[in-house]
């Protein structure tokens, strides 16, 4: 401890608050004897601290607020709190009975209780007129989406069925009576002659060598037009070459849907035969719905929910799907139906800018 005139105040404070040892206290006192001018005016070696006063506030009880609980008893002072608690339903049956007795026995309390009861708000009848705007019709919207998915799926399924080639079938085609096509998108009469229907599911037509007419185009890609389709003015007769039927090899049209490693093969005319294009594998995603979800859909139930036409057919769905595909892709495809004498479907014809395919429907008894 080195007390001097520069630091003696700190030691004085320690001395007053009792933080110095006996020897240090003695050193401070010795310093003050040698330096009497450093001694504080009120310092007399006794500690000066403020004593806790014993002053009591007498109004504490009035300030206290205690919400009535199940153990509380009603008194004159807590009558108002009990009244509110009774209004709020917070009292027990016993407390409520006590409160009622107090009210009935005192006119002033009775008036008081009546006023408390008037503080309860009565809900006015207010009608919000914008409810119809708040409501959502997403159910219908979702239904339409489901319907579109179904339509597309049905269209693809029909196409798949129509274009499926069975190579084991006898190639000799049997021309049957050309049925009349009455699809929803049927072409105008005279503009498009219907090709003869074949009695087998094959694209190869041996007896009719002009199934596909090929337009030579030295610059651009080869374009094919179906039989009977109107040719563009620049196509002259000498630019048309007959297709030799023996060179036409039927090839299956494969459709890929959500299968990674599957290629989408399409057919194009290449002068004298049809070859598949080497298109790199492409994932075809119909929607973000999984196939399992689509498979779970009850088609008729879905249709019933959104149309009153209960007997809507798969044919109509397929046609709607093709329309949808046309709208999305800008294609010009159509699906036509052939009907027999009884009005039953007897065949299909799928027609696009590139090719036209017909197929009868095999009916099992």
């Amino acid at each position: 401890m080195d007390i001097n005139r520069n630091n003696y105040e700190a030691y004085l404070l320690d001395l007053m608050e009792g933080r110095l040892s006996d020897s240090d206290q003695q050193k401070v006192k010795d310093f003050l004897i040698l330096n009497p001018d450093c001694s504080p005016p009120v310092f007399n070696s006794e500690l000066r601290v403020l004593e806790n006063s014993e002053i009591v506030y007498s109004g504490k009880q009035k300030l206290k607020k205690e919400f009535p609980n199940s153990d509380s008893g009603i008194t004159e002072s807590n009558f108002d709190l009990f009244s509110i608690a009774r209004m709020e339903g917070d009292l027990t049956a016993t407390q409520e009975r006590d409160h009622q007795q107090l009210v009935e026995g005192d006119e002033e309390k009775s008036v008081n209780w009546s006023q408390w009861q008037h503080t309860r708000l009565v809900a006015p009848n207010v009608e919000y007129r914008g409810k119809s705007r708040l409501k959502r019709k997403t159910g219908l919207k979702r239904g339409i989406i489901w319907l579109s998915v179904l339509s597309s799926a049905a269209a693809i399924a029909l196409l798949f069925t129509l274009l499926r080639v069975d190579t084991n079938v006898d190639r000799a085609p049997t021309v049957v009576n050309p049925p009349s096509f009455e699809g929803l998108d049927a072409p105008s009469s005279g503009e498009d002659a219907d090709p003869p229907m074949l009695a087998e599911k094959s694209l190869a037509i041996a007896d009719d060598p002009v199934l596909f007419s090929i337009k030579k185009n030295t610059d651009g890609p080869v374009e094919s037009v179906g039989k009977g389709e109107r040719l563009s003015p620049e196509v002259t007769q000498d630019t048309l070459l007959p297709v030799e039927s023996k060179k036409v090899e039927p090839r299956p049209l494969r459709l890929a849907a959500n299968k990674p490693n599957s290629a989408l093969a399409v057919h194009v005319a290449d002068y004298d035969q049809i070859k598949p294009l080497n298109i790199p594998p492409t994932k075809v995603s119909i929607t973000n719905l999984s196939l399992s979800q689509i498979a779970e859909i009850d088609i008729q139930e879905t249709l019933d929910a959104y149309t009153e036409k209960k007997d809507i057919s798969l044919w109509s769905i397929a046609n709607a799907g093709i329309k949808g595909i046309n709208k999305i892709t800008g294609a010009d495809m159509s699906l036509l139906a052939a009907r027999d004498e009884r009005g039953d479907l007897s065949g299909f014809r799928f027609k696009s800018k590139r090719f036209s395919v017909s197929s009868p429907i095999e009916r099992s008894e």
Partner: protein
Amino acid sequence: MTVEEYNKAVDKYADNLYRFVLKNLKDDHMSNDIVQDTFEKLWVKLENVSGLKVKTYLFTSAYHTMIDYIRKERKYSDVDLNNAYEPSHSAHYSDLGEILEQAVENLPEDQKAVVMLRDYEGYSYREIAEITDLSETQVKVYIYRARIYLKNYIGSMERVI
């Protein structure tokens, strides 16, 4: 929550929600906006809101939007809040309902909303606490204070009348 449940919620709670906001704000246009905004929020969170909790969700969302609006409006207005809490003896009232309505108008916003949720919608202390983000004790205190103010207001006006 399904779309059907959502539409049922519109039928069932839009009136109550509108009344709650309108009685607090006294502004038809803003009340409309808040109701629409509230149901829009519900629509966005449709799959996260249980059908059983939809009413609480609606009132919670509307309450907070309303309080935010009130605070924003108060910031730009020069309302003398000290005088607003005092009973106005110069006003003319024809019945007790009008007196009570005027008294409710004078309540602080938090007390007013809490009392309306209690009386109009019949919510419990716990439910009101959930909606307003207050503790149950705070809710109870607000209701008690509001009742005392309303009773004193009614008493003083009855004497005047």
